[in-house]
């Protein structure tokens, strides 16, 4: 990618912001329609825009927010909503573990701030760049918080006004899918990665058909990575 070719330059503090922004814009593009849709849905479920804002700030995890709103509107209990949220967002445990490898030289404060912004999308964008050795925690923080702002603002706008963007306009609903396609290709750095992706994808499809909820993501990922690591160790013995 041309926009990330230059290595970090410590003498220029504009660079982290600009590089962070240039990495973050595809995420923002994807978050806007989803945030708007979430706001609209939440408002229809009787949730006040201030509560929508509070949720987008404190939770910042799209799919679990959708699920929580639909559970609230059916009168589900607080504890069952919170347990469901925990289960849906447990996949971040794997993402943060995978990112931790790159984040040895930093303070706990900064790590705690970074943890807040770990989403499927920011994880994929930041991990790709960390693994190419041309990324820093500051740049990653810019990515996380730019995406965070896009999420909060679009969900609140959705909550106040209904949809501004006509549904399906410009194919914007496909933005995150297209982004994941490209980020997946960046991760296919050799045959073992390809095998991992194939196993994870196929197992995820099968599990998603037979078990309700989103636990298929974590289960398929752990299964694929463990299987391929096993194959690798066995082959290289």
């Amino acid at each position, binding site marked *: 990618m041309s926009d990330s070719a230059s290595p970090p330059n410590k003498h220029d503090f504009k660079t982290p912001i600009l590089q962070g922004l240039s*990495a973050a814009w595809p995420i923002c*593009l994807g978050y806007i329609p989803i945030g708007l849709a979430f706001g609209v849905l939440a*408002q229809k479920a009787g*949730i*006040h825009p*201030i*509560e929508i804002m*509070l949720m987008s700030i404190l*939770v910042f995890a799209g799919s*679990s927010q959708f699920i929580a709103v639909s559970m*609230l509107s059916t009168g589900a209990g*607080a504890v069952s909503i919170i347990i469901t*949220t*925990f289960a849906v*967002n447990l*996949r*971040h*445990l794997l*993402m*943060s573990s*995978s990112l*931790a*490898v790159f984040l*040895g030289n*930093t303070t*706990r404060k900064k*790590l705690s701030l970074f*943890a807040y912004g770990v989403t*499927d999308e920011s994880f*994929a964008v930041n991990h790709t760049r960390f693994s190419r050795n041309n990324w820093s925690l500051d740049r990653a923080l810019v990515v996380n918080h730019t995406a965070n702002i896009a999420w909060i603002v679009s969900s609140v706008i959705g909550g106040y006004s209904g949809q501004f963007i006509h549904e*399906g306009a410009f*194919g914007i609903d*496909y933005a995150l*899918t*297209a982004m*994941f*396609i*490209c*980020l997946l*290709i*960046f991760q296919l750095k050799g045959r*073992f*990665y390809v095998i991992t*992706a*194939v*196993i994870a*994808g*196929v*197992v*995820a*499809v099968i599990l998603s*058909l037979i078990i309700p909820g989103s636990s298929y*993501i974590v289960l*398929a*990922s752990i299964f694929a*990575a*463990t299987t*391929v*690591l096993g194959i690798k*160790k066995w082959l290289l013995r």
Partner: protein
Amino acid sequence: MAVTIIHQKVVWVILGMGLVTYVPRWFPLMLLSRRNLPQWLVEWLDLIPAAILSALLLPELVTKGMPRHMSLWQPELWVALPTFIFALKTKSLGGTVVIGMALFWLAQSII
């Protein structure tokens, strides 16, 4: 009708959701970032992104509905193929997003 009061239950739900979402994001960073991890764990974690991205992506392309069922004749899947080739050839994230959106828009307007 817009509800003008803040519900106490909703606030508690949000606080609880925030806590159980933050801890899994925070805990591994605190636990793993400042120590030397065994080689097998580093290799395992290195495979996780490819696994997660594929596990997130593929079900979106070939299934739909609640509960999910197979759906191979949907634009999500058929737009993914040229988008995949474009991404493979150009390695451009921004370009792939724009091309994917354009093709999906086109596919939806045809159907």
